């Protein structure tokens, strides 16, 4: 059980009277890429927000690195989120006043990394995601797809043990989408990062090591428990 990095147990959540998630279990191990699939409105984003501690569940528990997470104070959750989670929002949340590279450096700067080191690391990530030539542009000067890749770079820049990504290829065509997926595979392979990848596209889900299927707030398919033993073949990374 020691390599379980993130776990949601019997998670339940409602908005007003509407039950959006019901008894959802999801356990994720280091180095796994789990695709969370399901039609629009099935509760995928809500599940990710609960796992990230951005929302508190009505019932159920969230465990991060073997410790209860959902009951921590707001401040403690933010601290741990910064250090241990990379989050890619479905609709982006980069800071519009900053340039692309300043946005990507942000987690490192907040963690106290020296400016020069942060910049160097940020440009490695921007390079990997194919947007390094836009590094010094302000957010308003890049396309939605470029901003989305910058958001992925920001989530990965401080090599957190867990990445939560909400439709991270939603604004991308097949080839730029593959840059994002390659970056996740690289992180999973090289750093043992656990990735929870929300998508409604099966083509994207085929990059994951396993998948779960949500319908109307319940898990109806896939494998919610981590696969035991050596994980299924992880997609190959370019040498």
């Amino acid at each position, binding site marked *: 059980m020691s390599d379980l990095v993130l776990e949601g147990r019997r998670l339940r959540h409602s908005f007003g009277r509407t039950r959006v998630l019901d008894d959802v279990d999801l356990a994720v191990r280091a180095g796994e890429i789990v695709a969370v699939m399901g*039609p629009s409105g099935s509760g995928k984003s809500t599940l990710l927000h609960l796992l990230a501690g951005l929302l508190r569940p009505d019932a159920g528990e969230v465990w991060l690195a073997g410790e209860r997470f959902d009951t921590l104070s707001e401040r403690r959750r933010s601290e741990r989120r910064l250090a241990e989670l990379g989050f890619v929002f479905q609709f982006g949340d980069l800071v519009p006043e900053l340039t692309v590279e300043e946005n990507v450096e942000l987690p490192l700067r907040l963690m106290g990394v020296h400016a020069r080191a942060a910049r160097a690391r940020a440009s490695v990530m921007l390079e990997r995601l194919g947007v390094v030539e836009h590094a010094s542009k302000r957010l308003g000067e890049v396309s939605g797809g470029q901003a989305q890749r910058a958001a992925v770079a920001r989530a990965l820049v401080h090599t957190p043990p867990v990445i939560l990504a909400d439709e991270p290829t939603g604004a991308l065509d097949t080839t730029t989408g593959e840059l994002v997926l390659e970056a996740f595979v690289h992180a999973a392979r090289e750093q043992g990062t656990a990735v929870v990848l929300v998508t409604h*596209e*099966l*083509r994207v*889900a*085929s*990059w*994951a090591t396993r*998948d779960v299927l949500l319908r109307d707030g319940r898990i109806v*398919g896939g494998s919610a428990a981590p696969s035991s033993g050596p994980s*299924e*073949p*992880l*997609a*190959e*990374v*370019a*040498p």
Partner: protein
Amino acid sequence: MALLALLDEGPTHGFDLKRRYDALLGHERELKYGQVYSTLQRLERDGLAAGVGIEAGGGADRKLYAITAQGVTELDQWLTTPDPVSGRPAEVFTRVVLALVSGRDADQVLEAHRRAFLDRMRVLTARRHAGDVVDRLAGDYEVAHLDADLRWIELASVRLKDIAEKVRATGSKGTDA
């Protein structure tokens, strides 16, 4: 036509054509020598290819063929003229229809195929850096087709649920959708 396209690179003999065809396009279905030689004879008869000698030291099966001017014209035309788009239903479609008409659970048919198709897609994705550019294109092609089939499966699941709800709402007698 595939052989004609390979001949377009330069004159060669049947043995070499088979080898190159199998390497490029064979994919679990290699050409038979018989097919190669009968195709070459037909191309020659139709004036699309012509015999241009025998490879030094070779026997009768080492006859060298070259594409003709008419062959080049035909090849160009063939490459840019798509086959009629047929919309031929895939096996999964057939099975869903048969499950429905025989009063069985079509959702189970869909779910089983969804699983199998996604597993296959995962294998292809994992292999994406193996092989050369043609293998890569072949993989992309298959993934795109699986993706289309999977989209249809998702859509069919929703449609079947709608149908089931309508049947229940009207209280009419019907098979389980």
